[in-house]
């Protein structure tokens, strides 16, 4: 046993003597906690791009993709209680789904081992999207965005750069009925053909829309766990392209 394995073994809770089968564990239905299996190995690079590593960061190599083993039937929402989900929404994750979670949860999950496999418990509101077959289903009201690149000529060279506060809607799921966090003052706007700004409901948001994000939350400056952040670290990306993630109230208007 290596030193790393020994240290890990002291952190992980071994369930071998506690249960016969992993499905024997009973979840508290109102705690919004899911049992997931670790499927991502971030000790190896799976992206074919060669990157110059300037500094190592835990966030870049955190395991953020898991397989759902057990999930509660409903999502509990009551802001008076700490176990409340951050968003009033429905349970949209099924057993067997691959889920992508946010960074802070991935660094703070409880870890268990059972019959040689590693499991984690995660909160439902940490899940950004679920992958079911080839489908990507954003959950918790998240919107998946793809950055927009613009090219300009510098001398004889063509330089491409990401537009800082615009993006294209790639995937949208169902909207949240209510938010635990207050997003007041961030109303959604739409620019109509006469270039006047009109109110719109986020029901009007469609895949392919070009959206303008709050300029203080620009994509190029996005860091893990900021209000708009990359779904995956580039070194361990499994999806076809880089996606950014935000909640609907972060969108200022549709272009």
């Amino acid at each position, binding site marked *: 046993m290596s030193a790393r394995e020994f240290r890990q073994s002291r952190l992980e809770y071994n369930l071998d003597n506690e249960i016969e089968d992993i499905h024997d564990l009973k979840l508290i239905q109102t705690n919004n906690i899911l049992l997931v299996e670790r499927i991502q190995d971030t000790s190896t690079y799976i992206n074919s791009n060669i990157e110059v590593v300037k500094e190592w960061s835990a966030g870049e190599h955190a395991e953020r993709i898991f397989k759902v083993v057990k999930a509660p039937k409903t999502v*509990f929402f*009551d802001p008076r209680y700490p*176990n409340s989900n951050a968003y009033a929404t429905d349970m949209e994750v099924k057993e067997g789904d691959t889920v992508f979670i946010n960074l802070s949860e991935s660094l703070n999950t409880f870890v268990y081992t059972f019959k040689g496999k590693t499991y984690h418990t995660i909160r439902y509101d940490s899940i950004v999207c679920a992958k079911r077959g080839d489908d990507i289903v954003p959950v918790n009201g998240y919107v998946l965005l793809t950055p927009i690149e613009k090219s300009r000529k510098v001398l004889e060279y063509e330089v491409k750069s990401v537009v800082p506060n615009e993006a294209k809607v790639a995937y949208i799921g169902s909207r949240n009925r209510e938010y635990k966090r207050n997003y007041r003052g961030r109303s959604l706007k739409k620019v109509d053909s006469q270039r006047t700004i009109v109110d719109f409901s986020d029901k009007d948001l469609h895949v392919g829309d070009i959206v303008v994000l709050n300029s203080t939350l620009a994509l190029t400056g996005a860091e893990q766990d900021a209000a708009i952040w990359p779904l995956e670290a580039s070194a361990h990306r499994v999806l076809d392209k880089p996606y950014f993630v935000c909640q609907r109230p972060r969108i200022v208007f549709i272009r």
Partner: protein
Amino acid sequence: MRLLDDRVLVKPIIEEEVTKGGIIIPDSAKNHQVGKAEVIETGSGGKSFGMTVSNGDTILYNKHAGEPWDDNKLIRQSDIIFIL
């Protein structure tokens, strides 16, 4: 004693682990964030939800949550991770 809301009184179960070589690793030497306990008493539930755990259940809970109460611990149902 009548517990209010979703509070749960639990008795932590402390188990020593013996390695293959015979070394005893006490619970205090482990960094587990998860503890095992037996439910002694439960409250009646929150305003919008009931209690899932009942007296006598063995549970896994967030070891850093709650406050000590004699040899027992007073936690909330939201600190419980699994019922075994």
